[in-house]
């Protein structure tokens, strides 16, 4: 986490200079804390899902971080640092590295990802991860349904798959986990929205054998960007 904070600070400092120039494509940065929430599950997690980028219209550096901290346990997280290049009007191709941390172990990955806006306005990201002879695929998509201009229902679903078992990382071969949720936020400002939601998370196959999980729970949190 400390490293993340440091990188964030460096990036924000760098991007402060962007205001000086007035070209059509100045250097900008954006921090998005998409989810920062309390999960009313057995672990009583504090969970986050965030990213920040710095760059230009077509070229950006992205830092992704998501994870959770159980009330009585250690933090687990998945992090990626990628170079992102726009390859189509709505799509970015990304290359970089990933770093997963669990209670027992950690793993680094090579990452190739595709991120963008799929038809019907689905914000989508698919990442292929390579490391320790394992190949992972992490898919996620999210939709925003405007109930009013400020009250927004956002259903999302993500799925993780792996080519082989990795016990110490809690990953099993095949379909590993599906998490589906729906969050209802109220945008007090575009940049600031508290939300409540429901989420369901289930482990499958070998992953379920390592750590069985099948629970639905309520969440409450904040969505912030700047």
């Amino acid at each position, binding site marked *: 986490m400390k490293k993340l904070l440091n990188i964030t600070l460096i990036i924000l400092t760098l991007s402060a200079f962007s*205001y000086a120039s*007035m*070209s*059509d*494509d100045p250097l*900008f940065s*954006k921090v998005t804390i998409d989810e920062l929430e309390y999960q009313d599950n057995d672990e009583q997690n504090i969970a986050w899902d965030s990213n920040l980028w710095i760059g230009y*219209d*077509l070229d950006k550096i992205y830092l992704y971080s998501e994870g959770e901290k159980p009330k009585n346990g250690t933090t687990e997280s998945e992090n990626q640092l990628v170079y992102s290049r*726009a*390859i*189509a*009007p*709505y799509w970015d191709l990304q290359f970089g590295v990933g770093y997963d941390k669990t209670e027992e172990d950690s793993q680094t990955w090579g990452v190739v990802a595709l991120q963008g*806006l*799929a*038809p*019907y*306005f689905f914000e989508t990201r698919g990442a292929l991860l390579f490391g320790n002879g394992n190949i992972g695929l992490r898919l996620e998509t999210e939709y925003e*349904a*405007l*109930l*009013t*201009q*400020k009250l927004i*229902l956002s259903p999302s679903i993500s799925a993780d798959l792996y080519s082989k078992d990795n016990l110490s990382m809690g990953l099993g071969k095949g379909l590993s986990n599906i998490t589906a949720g729906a969050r209802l936020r109220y945008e007090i400002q*575009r940049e600031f929205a508290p939300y409540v939601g429901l989420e369901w998370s289930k482990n499958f196959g070998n992953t379920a054998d390592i750590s069985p999980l099948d629970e639905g729970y309520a969440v409450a949190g904040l969505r912030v*960007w700047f």
Partner: protein
Amino acid sequence: MLINNSKIDRRTFVKGLVISSLVATSLLDAKESTPIIDSSSHLYGTVFSLVIGKTAVNLTGTPAVATTVNGQISGPTLHFNEGDTVTINVYNDLEVDSSIHWHGLILPPAMDGVPEISFEGIKPKESFTYTIALRQSGTYWYHSHSGFQEQSGVYGAIVIHPKEREPFTYDRDYVVTLSDWSDEKPESIYRKLKLMGDYYNFNQRTVGDFFSEVKENGLVNAFNSRKMWNEMSMSDRDLSDVTGYTYTYLMNGNNPATQFKALFRRGEKIRLRFINSSAMTFFDVRIPNLKMTIVSADGNNVHPVMVDEFRIGVAETYDVIVEPQNNEAYAIFAQSLDRSGYALGSLTTNPANLATAPAMDALPILSHTDMGMKMGGMQMNKGDKMDMQSDKKMAKNIPMKKKIPITPLPEARGVQTTMRAMNPQYRLNDPGVGLRNNGRKVLSYADLKSLDGVVDTTYPDREIILRLTGNMERYMWSINGIKYSDAEPLQFHYGERLRITYINDTMMNHPMHLHGMWSDLETGENQLVRKHTVIVQPGSKISMQVTVDAKGEWAYHCHLLYHMGGMFRKVVVS
């Protein structure tokens, strides 16, 4: 009359903030000596002094800092006489480079005021002297061509009084400058647009809209009519990038509460010179209970046409004549295209008697037409159908006597562009989204025709096609899919008559402005109107002709301030 604020240092400036907020509470009593908001400031003669500086203002109830000309929003109206040579000394009291561009004036390239093309710009605490021999008359305006200074207040009106008698008469003459003000810094607006293209759009489709369509047309039809938009990831509510969420719309520097007041006596004919000095806002202008006779467009007299309403694009000007018959207060009502707000003034016999604003019209919804799709059998939104008969007339290309050779230009497809108008049409009879069949007589370009003898009728030697392209999701704008910084200059040949056809591959109106030479817009068969700014409607096609009679380097761009960086070309005439 001239307020020289060049001596204001930082400390007095901060003090000024306090003073101005006091002043602003009594905006209604604003006198000529008031350092801000002096909508009646006029300068005459052949030698002018302008100072670009920072001024504390309060246009919204919150103190803010504007960049101004002579401490005023709008800047002083400059009165020139056709045939005179005027000298204008411009001092830059900002901490950054500045400039003044004389919008619509025919002048030498070095006097055009575009940094990096016409000249170096005016450095901080330095001056530049413009010398312009006036070869034209009518209503024009000036504005900064540096950074985003135009958004924060560096603009004003130009009235060039003609040598010859005008083909119409009037008893009173008012300039009506429309603009969009935000307390936000323009750099912040631009950043928000880059981070989230629809940041300012609070009229987006909701789930409720879909359910009402299901109720009306059934699930399958409702789904199908959404299909194309959904598949292309486009929004039919994408009307304006920046809206009343952050903008306060001004008329001669007055907000709708303080109101610009144009006085008249019953029976008088009044000339109103409308100028759209906005950074980003198209206005739909009407004066309820009054017919307006359009007598001039972009400074050039036209065959008079009587209308209830007209749309004025950014940088356009229209002169109208009205003849109010009653002793009442008439509302000069200019609603923004996206209906998120309005500018308001009163045409009244008594300054204490102000008009109230009419209700704004319903939110316009973009149709398949605005996407440049085929019209036949297309389901259109209610109230958004076009006059089919006139459309048929205009649907075809304007007949040209013989084929004009087209000079191909480099074009890129890809990341820069999210849409391509598959079947762009000439839509000269189309007043535009939100104005179709609204029960009022609304001006369209087809109504505009220059008075005889004004426009060159030489047959075009060649043609170029400019596709106006963009990516709203990433907030990038370009021409032919290539943004300015990646583009070669356009080469125009001195002495040629050039036809330029625009195709708008976006969902937004773009006001295209060619510097240095007139844009003779084709508004019908053998019908041209002389303009300096041409609105290209979403998904449409429109052609203009240019007599290339000005050697040098010129700017050529979309006049929406936050589109300009990319949707821009340098023109080289040699």
